[in-house]
């Protein structure tokens, strides 16, 4: 008997229950799908179709010069929508810059959600209104925020779960590690959703991690990892809902890896042909989240032409309204530059504000 045989040196958690299944969890097209609530499937369908239309419209707006840039989530709609739908109103969403769809599905105004990418301000919405943190561009930096907020809510005795979204590339950042570790140690009510869409700009997952799957990383932190078919909206919704529930009832954090694919280029400004084959894209198109859901709905007699048409019409209406609203120039006030830098501007800022005011006055007069 050595000190290593004493209880103090035994692993503190059994690793086995934390391990993800090696096969991504699926529901649609499986026998289990029969038990799924038709209303949920229809709701997911409506939102996915809207989401895809939103992506297409936003990308079109970049071509018309109405958006500075747009990172499309086409192909990833099931993840985006399920993330929003899995939350209760009091919960918080921590999106990354690609997650505009989740933000809109959570209730943020579709134009306000695009403020960052239009470039008239950074965050276009009040995070408190729908409990949506600002879209985060510095990768993985939003993850510790989600942990801290969830921790604070728990300390306050509030029933709040935080859902934090990040890409596969973002999991390489130090902040990912630190956030997951804090969450597990604090047993914070957080859910981490990694959308593994195959690429970080041009870099494929194989160059990002040597882990069996990203979900396996959970074990190292002492939280369960779940691997899900990210193009199966019902599976995504179920796994997210379970993880949110687990967090809500004191079970601690979960790491979910959604296996999906970025159908479009990284952004409208990227040329994906430089680093990937069209055949790969085609293979993923054949496993399209909307098509997968449509097949299920059709086989259960839940999708007819009427629903298809009304869903398409609803998406068109949303796109038309977005287009119209985005075609008017935003009202800009250069003086906003000096607002909200501090609660009270510094003397130097006041001086600079006066300087700009004078310049603009001179500009108006000339």
């Amino acid at each position, binding site marked *: 008997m050595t000190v290593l045989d004493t209880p103090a040196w035994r692993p503190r958690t059994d690793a086995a229950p934390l391990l993800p299944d090696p096969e991504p969890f699926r529901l649609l097209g499986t026998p289990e799908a029969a038990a799924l609530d038709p209303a949920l499937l229809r709701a997911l369908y409506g939102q996915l179709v809207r989401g895809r239309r939103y992506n297409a419209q936003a990308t079109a707006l970049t071509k018309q010069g109405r958006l500075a840039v747009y990172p499309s989530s086409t192909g990833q709609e099931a993840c985006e929508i399920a993330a929003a739908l899995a939350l209760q109103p009091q919960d918080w969403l921590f999106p990354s810059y690609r997650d505009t769809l989740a933000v809109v599905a959570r209730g943020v105004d579709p134009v306000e959600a695009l403020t960052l990418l239009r470039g008239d301000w950074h965050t276009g919405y009040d995070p408190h209104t729908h409990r949506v943190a600002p879209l985060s561009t510095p990768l993985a930096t939003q993850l510790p925020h989600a942990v801290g907020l969830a921790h604070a809510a728990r300390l306050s005795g509030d029933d709040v779960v935080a859902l934090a979204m990040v890409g596969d590339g973002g999991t390489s950042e130090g902040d990912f590690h630190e956030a997951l570790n804090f969450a597990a140690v604090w047993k914070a009510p957080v859910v981490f959703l990694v959308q593994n869409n195959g690429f970080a700009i041009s870099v494929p997952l194989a*160059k990002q991690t040597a882990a069996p799957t990203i979900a396996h990383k959970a074990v190292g932190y002492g939280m369960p990892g779940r691997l899900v078919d990210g193009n199966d909206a019902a599976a995504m919704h179920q796994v997210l809902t379970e993880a949110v529930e687990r967090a809500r009832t004191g079970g601690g954090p979960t790491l979910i890896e959604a296996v999906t694919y970025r159908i479009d280029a990284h952004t409208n400004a990227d040329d994906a042909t*430089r680093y990937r084959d069209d055949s790969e894209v085609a293979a993923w198109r054949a496993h399209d989240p909307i098509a997968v859901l449509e097949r299920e709905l059709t086989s259960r007699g839940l999708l007819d032409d009427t629903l298809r048409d009304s869903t398409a019409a609803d998406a068109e209406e949303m796109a038309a309204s977005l287009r119209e609203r985005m075609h008017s120039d935003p009202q800009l006030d250069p003086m906003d530059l000096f607002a909200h830098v501090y609660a009270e501007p510094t003397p130097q800022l006041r001086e600079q504000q006066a300087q700009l005011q004078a310049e603009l006055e001179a500009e108006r007069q000339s």
Partner: protein
Amino acid sequence: MTTATHAAGSTEASASKPATMAQALNQALRDALAADPAVHILGEDVGTLGGVFRITDGLTKEFGEDRCTDTPLAEAGILGTAVGMAMYGLRPVVEMQFDAFAYPSFEQLVSHVARMRNRTRGAMPLPLTIRIPYGGGIGGVEHHSDSSEAYYLHTPGLHVVTPATVEDAYGLLRAAIASDDPVVFLEPKRLYWSKSQWSPQEPAEVPPIGKAVVRRPGRTATLITYGPSLPVCLEAAEAAKEDGWDLGVVDLRSLVPFDEETVAAVVRGTGRAVVVHESSGFGGAGAEIAARITERCFHHLEAPVLRVAGFDIPYPPPMLERHHLPGVDRILDAVGRLQWEEG
């Protein structure tokens, strides 16, 4: 997110064709890789894609993945491993994708890169180059337009270099890679597509790090600047002729070491100086430069040294950035405030 545009283009640009700063940087990296097997490039998307600004275009193809490597997405990891590679005798050249995305590597930079020579009494210098596209004026959304030079120049042990011309981009990058000290090499994004009749086949002479250059002689006042603000200052100097001012322009090229001799000599000649940069003025490079000019040239000065800089605000969204960036009018305004009536 990253706006990936504008390929650096073919490296076969002939002597007669104008080259962009992006192409000159690409050529400098290519030549450095060819000249020294110790040179290794590390960064996000620097391989197959050739970098989001295409500065490393074609290098992996030509030199292999071990010489130009797509790393995992982690800036602290990139710089930290580069430190280890340099400790073993390699000469890493690191690419940070954007100014604001270099921040995760700040601890490695401040705690290790900047100090290794000093803490080992010179036994372990770190010959590494950290390339950072920086600055605004490209319509970038949040976190894509920072001017971060003040953080770096305030960190003893780092050289801080920034080219403003196509020729310097080549020469200074070669000099940075050849340097046995760590160099933070700040590339002005908005000048990536600026052109010059520069021939990649016959690179100009490599300028030494730490030498400022007089871009335009002038008798009545001196504009002191660097990087992205050089073209603005040259434009201002041209426009100032209308007001009867003969403005000179000094391009610092390197903030550390700071070429006090050249700057002081020029300012003694004019007695009036304005420092121009787009990063925030408070605690910025201009403060150091103005203080040094005052210390060195006090008895030659006809007016206080003024600064024209970005406002002391987080970098604004693209639709408002023109109000933030120092432009010709703001520079000429400052020149007008140089106490001419007393001169």
